[in-house]
C-alpha cells in the first residue's frame, strides 16, 4: 500500500559515490524511489519546500541517507537543521560517510542522527551494509507516520 510513495532521499555530492549507492540499493532490491540531491543547500531547499522546490510533492521522504563531506553546506549542518525542525525531525536520518572520525560521530549523535554508517572500501561489504540498512529501515523499523 503506497509503497511507491515511500521515497528515500540520498544527499551525496560525488556522482561516483551516488552511482555506487544506487547500484547497491538496486542490488538489495529496495524498490523505493530514490531522490538524489547533490549538495546540502539543495537538500535543505527540498526538505523545507523552498526556492526551486517550493512546489514539490508534499510528501516527505521516509529515510534520508546523508553524506557528511559536501561543499557549501555539509551534512552535519543539514542534519542539524532537519532535527531542529518540528516537522522534519521525525524522519530517520542515516549518515553514510567515508570515515569514522570521532568528532563527526560525536557531532552526529549530538544532533540526533538515527544511525551512522561508514562506507567500507570493499564493495561487497558495502552491499551487505546497504542491504542491512534497507532491511532494517524499510521492513523492520516502524516508520513514523507520513508527514507533510
Amino acid at each position, binding site marked *: 500500500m503506497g509503497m511507491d510513495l515511500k521515497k528515500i532521499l540520498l544527499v551525496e555530492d560525488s556522482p561516483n559515490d551516488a552511482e555506487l549507492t544506487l547500484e547497491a540499493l538496486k542490488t538489495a532490491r529496495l524498490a523505493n524511489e530514490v531522490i538524489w540531491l547533490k549538495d546540502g543547500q539543495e537538500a535543505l531547499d527540498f526538505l523545507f519546500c523552498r526556492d526551486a522546490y517550493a512546489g514539490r510533492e508534499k510528501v516527505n521522504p521516509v529515510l534520508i541517507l546523508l553524506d*557528511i563531506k559536501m561543499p557549501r553546506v555539509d551534512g552535519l549542518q543539514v542534519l542539524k537543521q532537519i532535527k531542529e525542525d518540528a516537522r522534519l525531525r521525525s524522519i530517520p536520518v542515516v549518515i553514510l560517510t567515508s*570515515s569514522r572520525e570521532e568528532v563527526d560521530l560525536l557531532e552526529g549523535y549530538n544532533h540526533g542522527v538515527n544511525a551512522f554508517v561508514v562506507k567500507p*572500501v*570493499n564493495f561487497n561489504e*558495502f552491499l551487505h551494509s546497504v542491504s542491512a540498512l534497507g532491511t532494517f529501515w524499510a521492513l523492520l523499523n516502524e516508520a513514523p507516520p507520513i508527514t507533510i
Partner: protein
Amino acid sequence: MKIRTSLRITSTISILMMLGSTVGTFFAFKWLRQASAFELQLIDLQGDVFERTLLRDEYLLMARPQSLVRWKQKSLEIAGHLKDLSGRSLSPSSALLLDRMNQKFQATWALLPRIAALRSSNEGGESGKGSTWRIEQRLTNQLLVDTYLLSDSTKLLLLEARRDSIDERNNLLLLLALSTLALGLTVTSASTHLNHLLSRRVAVLKTWTYSISNGKLDYRIPLGGDDELADLAREVNDLAEKLQRTYESLEATNRELEAFSYSVSHDLRAPLRHLTGFVELLWRMDLSSLDVKSQHYLTVISDSAKKMGCLIDDLLSFSRMGRGEMMKRNVNMGQLVHEVIAEHAKDLPSGRFIDWRIGTLPTVVGDQAMLRLVLTNLVSNAVKYSRQVAAPIIEISASTDETHHVLCVRDNGAGFDMRFVDKLFVLFQRLHSSEEYEGTGVGLANVRRIITRHGGRTWAEGEPNIGATFYFTLPQGPEG
C-alpha cells in the same frame, strides 16, 4: 647584591674579626703574662725585704756578725731585684712607688752598716749613754722609719701589680667574650638573612615548578633583586617561555596532524571506494567477452584497490594510537591476555591446537584498550607465524628489573633473521612477503607506539625457523 658577594663579605669580615681577635688575644695574653710575671717578681721582692728585716733584727738584737753578712747579701739580692724592676715600663704611680723603694733601700743600705760601725767602736770600753749611743739611737730610729717606708711601698706596688694583673685578665676575658659575641652575631645575622632570602626565593621557585608541572605554562616568577636567585628566576622564566612556545607549536602541529588525518579519512577514501565499487560492478557484468589478460588486469586493479584500503585504514589507526587520550588505570595483564586469547580462539580454524603457556603477569598502570591492542597484535602475530608448525607453543611471561615490568611473547614459529631486527617495528616494513604471510606491517609499529607512550621499550629476538620472542616493558607504578 649577589648571595655569593654577601657570603664573601661575611666570611671576609669573619676572618678579619678572627684575625683581629687572635692578634688581640695574643697581645692581651702577653700583657697578662707580663703583669703576672711582674706580680711574682714583687712577691719575691716582698719576701726578700721581709727576710732582710728579720736579719736586721737578728743583728740588732743578737749582735752576730754573720747576721750582718747575711743582711748584706740579702740587700744585694734586693738591689738586683730593684734594678730589674727599674728596667720595666711602669705606670706613673708605680714608677713613683719604685722610686721611693729605691730611695728607702739606699737609706737602709747606708744606715745599718753605719750603726754597725758605731757599735763596734763602742765595743771597746764603757760609754754608757755617751754620744755614740745617742747617735746609734737616732740612726736606729731612722732605720726603723725607713724600713717601714720600704716595706709599705713594696706592699703598695704589689697591690698595683695585682690590680694590673686582674685588669689584664679581665681585658683578655672581655676581648674573648666580645670576639665570640661579634663573630656569633655576624654569623647569625648572615645566616638568618640568607635563610630568609633562600626560603622565600626557593618557595617562589617551588611555586613555579608546581605551576609548570601542572600545565600552567604561562606562570612567570615575579622578579626582584639582582642576586643569583634572581638570575635563576630570569632563566627559569625564559625556560617557561620557551616551554610554552614549544608546547603551543606542538599543539599546533597536533592540530595539523588531526586535520591531516581527517582529510585522509575522507578525501583519500572516497576515490578508493569508487575504484573498488566500480571494479566490483564491472565484475558483476558479463565478462565472458573479455580475454584472460583483461580479466587478469581487472583482478590486479581490484586487489590493489583493496590493498590500498587496508593500508589507509591501518595508517589511520596508527595515527589514532599516537593521538588519542590515554585513560590510565590499573590493568590486569593476566586477565587481558586470557581475553585476547579467547577472542583469537574464535578465529582459529578448528583442529588447530596451540600450547598456551601463560606465566604470572602483573597488574600495570595504562590504557586498557591500547594494551589490549598490543597483546592482540603480538598474539595474532605469534599465531600467524606459527601456522606452519606442527606443535606450536606460545609462551607469555613476565619478569621485573629495577624500574619496569618486562613482558614477553615467545613462539616457535617462522622466526626472523636478526640482521633485519631494526625493521621489525617500523611502519609498513615486513620481513616476509605477503604471499608467505599476510599483513601490512602496521601491527608491531602500533605496539611500539603504544608502549613508548606508556614509557616502556620494545625489542625482539629471533632465529629463522626456530622462533621469535617479543619483549616489551611497562613502568612499575604505585600499584607495585
